[in-house]
């Protein structure tokens, strides 16, 4: 097992180098002189030379690549032009928002998706099956931004003043305040990596209010996440439901299932205990792979629902021509994606010993 994990890690290395290279290349291909981008069109020759000197832009490209990689390894992602702050600080603030949203969406998608997939495979061609597959087709076809806007219209306009109304944007209602995690734990003076971790956790409002018992704020944070999570979950939900259905149908056609039925095992048990266990593997892969769809979707979802996560950060930096931020966020999302797929691969090997032997 350990050998498998090591080999898998080794295989990831070239991909990571490739990602860094692609992002570096995109950054160097940007139109216009970075000096004018940063200092404005009226920057003088001298100040530009000083600028190039400072950021190592007068070095040959291979050396620049070396510096870029070195900075990355030491955790330096550069400085945002728009905010004048280190990008890593911005990410610590905003990444938790996206992670929280993604976890919410993925939970909805997985639970509902597997449930619907099982229901439609167990009763193939029934009304449930046809309905689920119609929904799945519709789900992958409706653009995230259209669905998001329709949800807002329905829950914030049509259902306004009913108990089912949901807030259309933001993370908390006006007037709801949250005691930061570091303060709640009396660690304001703490510094260093541990503080970063605590701040990171503290920016996931649902989790931080839950562990500090701020119930009013907790409820408010959850309510604000429902609509964006539904909008974001639709595509993965549809994909998971489809995959569960087809994988389960394949397994249900196998001999051992017939044997189980012949032995008189009740159908419910055949499907849930005998078949589902063997059908779940491809579903796990799909769940890992939908992360790409989730991160793409987060860009649109956060933009529509006004959630300041990394998705909205991308949109804002496009408008503000904040190239270093776009570069850093692209890099981070790709690395995140690779990491999750690594985890999926390893968990796959845990679930199915045959894979380790290959």
């Amino acid at each position, binding site marked *: 097992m350990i050998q498998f994990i090591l080999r898998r890690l080794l295989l990831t290395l070239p*991909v990571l180098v490739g990602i860094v290279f692609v992002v570096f290349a995109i950054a160097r291909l*940007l139109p216009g002189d970075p000096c004018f981008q940063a200092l404005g069109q009226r920057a003088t020759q001298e100040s530009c030379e000083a600028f190039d000197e400072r950021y190592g832009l007068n070095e040959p490209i291979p050396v620049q690549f070396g510096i870029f990689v070195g900075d990355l390894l030491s955790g330096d992602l550069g400085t945002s032009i728009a905010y004048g702050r280190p990008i890593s600080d911005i990410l610590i603030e905003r990444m938790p928002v996206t992670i929280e949203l993604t976890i919410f969406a993925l939970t909805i998608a997985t639970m509902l998706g597997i449930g619907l997939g099982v229901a439609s495979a167990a009763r193939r061609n029934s009304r449930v099956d046809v309905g689920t597959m119609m929904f799945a087709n519709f789900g992958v076809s409706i653009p995230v931004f259209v669905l998001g806007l329709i949800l807002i219209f329905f829950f914030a306009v049509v259902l306004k003043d009913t108990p089912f109304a949901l807030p259309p944007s933001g993370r908390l209602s006006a007037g709801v305040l949250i005691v930061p995690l570091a303060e709640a734990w009396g660690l304001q003076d703490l510094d260093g990596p541990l503080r970063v971790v605590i701040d990171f956790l503290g920016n996931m409002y649902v989790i931080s209010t839950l562990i500090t018992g701020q119930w009013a704020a907790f409820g408010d944070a959850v309510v604000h996440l429902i609509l964006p999570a539904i909008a974001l979950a639709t595509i993965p939900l549809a994909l998971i439901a489809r995959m569960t259905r087809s994988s389960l149908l394949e397994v249900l056609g196998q001999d051992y299932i017939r044997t189980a039925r012949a032995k008189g095992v009740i159908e419910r048990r055949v499907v849930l205990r005998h078949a589902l266990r063997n059908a779940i593997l491809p579903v796990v892969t799909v769940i890992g792979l939908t992360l790409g769809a989730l991160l793409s979707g987060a860009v649109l979802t956060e933009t529509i629902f006004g959630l300041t996560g990394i998705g909205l950060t991308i949109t804002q930096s*496009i408008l503000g021509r904040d190239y270093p931020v776009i570069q850093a966020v692209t890099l981070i999302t790709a690395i995140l994606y690779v990491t999750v797929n690594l985890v999926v691969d390893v968990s796959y090997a845990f679930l199915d010993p045959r894979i380790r032997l290959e």
Partner: protein
Amino acid sequence: MSFGPSDNRLAARTETAGDAGLASIAPETLAARPGNLWRDTAKSILRQRSAQVGLVLLTVLITTAILAPVIATHDPNEAVGIEEGLTAAQKGPCIHLLGCRESQPQHYFGVDRNGRDVFSRVVHGARVSLYVGVLTVGFAILIGSVVGGIAAFLGGAVDNVLMRIMDVFLVFPALVLAIAIVTVLGAGLINAQIAIGVVAIPVYARVMRASVLSVRERDFVTASRALGESGPGILFRRIFPNAMTPLIVAGTLGIAGAILEVAALSFLGLGAQPPLAEWGSMIALDRNQLFNAPWLILAPGMALTISVLGFNLFGDGLRDALDPRLNR
């Protein structure tokens, strides 16, 4: 984000393990009933319920695109609402048959913020989306199939290097990479199409590679080689035409994804620029009117959904009909 193409990207990743299934049809089977292949294929496609629905939706989309100037009631870019002096209350949908007062000028989907007829814009948007989807996927397939075909045909180090490069592009979330590319190229519909196309290349490279790998081993290829045909000749004249089927399926599903993603880029202001009647940018323009004029978003939104649904359903039907291995 869907995201259609993500679906496609998933498929590309999960399918690489096995080789393309169509090659498993023995050549004799096809030879026994000459000339029937296309008719058989068409028949089995039309047997699929999803393909039938997809075909109907696509027919509507294509007809609308071709006849846009005939179907549209107004010039899509003319501020007719302002010329007609519509009051704020009159900007909503007005259809005389459904009881809208005859004295008020007819606008099926109302007029937008700039006084333009939304129905006409939605109708003309069909042209843009169809053109965007087909062209983007065509570009990606062209490059992807050459890369994948060469990788499979030459094998060894070339295969390894080419496919590892493709892998790197495949690990970026589609929309995020597309955004990064558009920021390099500059906003615009063509650049958005290039970005989405580039992002999709690895998908087709993988599909083509798998397909070529299996076709390569067939007898007629050995025969061509024995007859002394050149390497490129074998690849482009003998193998490619026989390895196209999985690509056609992936391409059809890919068009759905391309339409979605270009619309998403346009929604973010990176794709189609005003005043072009493109569905994504129409939604972006009137997004803030959601609360008092939801039809301005629903009309282009539903048009987008229906077009994408059409390609998805038809693609699914194609796959089931053309690829017996995937029959469910």
